[in-house]
């Protein structure tokens, strides 16, 4: 493998408290040296002047649809979309067909990802068999096959006793339990319950549905000592609960999607029932979105995760209440984060990189999120000032379901290296 010297870029690596112009030498796919004015023989040189160099981004929450729904996305197309978005590691949810609730499916995903050879793909295993919420899945066997976390994403585990057992069991296998927090009081809802659901005559999903489940999970984390990760947090009260849990040093973390800090429920009205504004959790009201911004600013939120949810156009070009939930997110996350958080002054560059890279790596304890000496040379290089226009027709993902098509934003992923190999070139 050829060696690589990345010259003159602005290195931002919160894991080592680095924020300045540095050169990076990569040997054999790993970080060999970081310093000023490095030189080495027999290396490719990459000029990164004017660009930010960060540890490769990590997405804790994507849906790759393979096996079973390859018409929406495959592991390969999803991993390609990840690279286009600057993500060198992605964690895929188990709601495939069949569900990733056993080692055979886990191995299949690992194998397919390895064949694709693009971004690193870490499977998340189901908590319960078939994600039916009735009995535990073969958690230990899946762990051996490569899962990094557990979740019944999309279907919260309603049975508290079962969730308690899952956490107790998961703890011994050192797996975080990720919950899509949605209590039954949101059942049948299609958007946030509030002014706009009332106005539009759409069935609401109250923020309360999230809060109740977050509160329960935090209490279970306290009881069991398991690591609990709240997926796509969107409600102000839920965020307060996480903040309070962290203050008490409970093993609780949370992630937020770019759409939940960018859009409000008013969007459903403004776009006249555009189904690309339909997702779960739903776009919340302004009060909630402002609370999310506070959580990003004060450090309560650990990670930005996309909840990349590809759907075929046929599943979205339907009546609002019949259309599928979810939007793609891998290829818009960096631009939205840079534009809405960095340039808006919500976070500085260090915190931004932490949210996209180090933070998520910490949450799942992945070998990622750092460019310290000896670590994997997964590197994302981006230009925070480049102006871009989002064009869904250019997505690497198989699906185009985004509410951000045509948006003009700042922030462009320019190069991505995985294990020292350049996998994306702008």
């Amino acid at each position, binding site marked *: 493998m050829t060696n690589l010297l990345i010259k003159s870029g602005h290195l931002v690596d919160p894991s080592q408290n680095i924020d300045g112009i540095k050169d990076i030498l990569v040997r054999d796919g790993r970080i060999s040296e970081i310093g000023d004015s490095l030189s080495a023989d027999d290396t490719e040189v990459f000029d990164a002047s004017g660009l930010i160099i960060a540890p490769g981004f990590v997405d804790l929450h994507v849906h790759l649809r393979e096996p079973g729904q390859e018409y929406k996305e495959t592991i390969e197309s999803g991993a390609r979309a990840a690279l286009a978005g600057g993500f060198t590691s992605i964690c895929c949810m188990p709601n495939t067909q069949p569900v990733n609730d056993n080692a055979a499916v886990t191995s299949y995903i690992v194998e397919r990802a390895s064949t694709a050879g693009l971004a690193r793909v870490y499977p998340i295993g189901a908590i319960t068999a078939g994600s039916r919420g009735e009995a535990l899945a073969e958690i230990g066997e899946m762990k051996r096959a490569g899962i990094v976390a557990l979740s019944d994403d999309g279907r919260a585990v309603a049975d508290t006793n079962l969730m308690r057992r899952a956490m107790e069991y998961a703890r011994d296998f050192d797996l975080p339990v990720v919950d899509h927090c949605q209590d039954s009081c949101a059942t049948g809802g299609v958007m946030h319950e509030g002014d706009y659901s*009332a106005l539009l*005559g759409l069935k609401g999903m109250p923020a309360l549905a999230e809060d109740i489940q977050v509160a329960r999970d935090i209490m279970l984390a306290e009881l069991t000592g398991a690591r609990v990760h709240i997926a796509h947090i969107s409600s102000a009260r839920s965020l307060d609960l996480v903040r309070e849990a962290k203050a008490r040093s409970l093993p609780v973390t949370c992630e937020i999607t770019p759409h939940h800090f960018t859009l409000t429920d008013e969007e459903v009205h403004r776009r*006249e029932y555009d189904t690309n504004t339909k997702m779960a959790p739903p776009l919340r009201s302004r009060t909630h979105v402002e609370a999310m911004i506070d959580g990003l600013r004060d450090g309560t939120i650990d990670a930005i995760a996309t909840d990349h949810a590809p759907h075929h156009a*046929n599943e979205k070009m339907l009546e609002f209440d019949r259309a599928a939930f979810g939007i793609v997110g891998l290829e818009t996350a960096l631009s939205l984060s840079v534009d809405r958080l960095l340039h808006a002054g919500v976070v500085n560059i260090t915190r931004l990189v932490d949210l996209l890279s180090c933070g998520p790596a910490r949450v799942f304890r992945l070998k990622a999120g750092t460019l310290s000496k000896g670590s994997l040379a997964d590197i994302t290089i981006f230009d925070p000032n480049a102006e871009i226009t989002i064009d869904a027709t250019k997505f690497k993902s198989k699906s185009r379901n985004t509410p951000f098509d045509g948006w003009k934003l700042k922030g462009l992923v320019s190069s991505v290296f995985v294990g020292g190999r350049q996998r994306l070139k702008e």
Partner: protein
Amino acid sequence: MPLLRKDLLGTRELSPQEATLILDTADNFSEVGRRQIKKVPTLRGKTIINLFFEASTRTRTSFEIAAKRLSADSINISASTSSVVKGETLLDTARNLQAMDPDAIVIRHSSSGAPHMIAKVVDASVINAGDGANEHPTQGLLDALTIRQKKGGFAGLKVAIIGDVLHSRVARSNAHLLSKLGSHVWLAGPRTLMPFGFEKLISDAEGSVRFAGSMDEALDAADVVMMLRIQLERQSGGFFPSLKEYSIHFGLNRRRLERAKKDVIVLHPGPVNRGVEIDSDVADGPFSLILDQVNNGVAVRMAVLYLLAGGE
């Protein structure tokens, strides 16, 4: 003068001037129904499709009569006979109908927003005949016409809308329209059937929309009382315990109506559940304008069809 819009999707987006234009036009057309020959040539050669995905007797008949009195060719498609049962999507159905060059498509659908969706893909004027719990604009307009005929106008009127506001497209269309025209709308019913928050969004109105603390508060000195139909399935949905209890606590009877003004008028969009949301002696009593509403429905729909599909 035609309306300067392609579609009528809700009263929400109508300006007071547009609403008044529709009502004035409807007033002119109401005379046609009293003629010996109930037909004018206004829309001769125009094609109007009534696309009904939900059962409806009154609204569909009303639209059909309106089209026929204007000499338009109208075609009825109901969900049971349409290709929806074969798995065709709404958008495909709409595009196929568009390919036959209709001038207007009147649509009723159980999903809120369905008319908005097809309006984006067809050239024909789309008229919302009721979508989910969102709007039923021609019902709002015919209610407004009925009120205007009796009260002379809308400014300062207290209008009580009572019942299942949460699921009611009639309540929404009326709240938007009547508040825009200067009335004060009071919503009441069991708390389980009240959508909260919605009054805050009605900001550009001359009048107002608010939630009453109780049915009696809404009825006190009301000029207009509009009772909403209660759907039987709401009982199994856990919104209230029983029809009997509903009728005792939220039904309109003669005694309760005494709280309203002496010259109150009582409206109901139909079909009426006698003895549930309204007693027969009120529904058939001297204050009731339920049949006037139905009569005005034809005139309002003639006006809407004319104003939207009548352009050159």
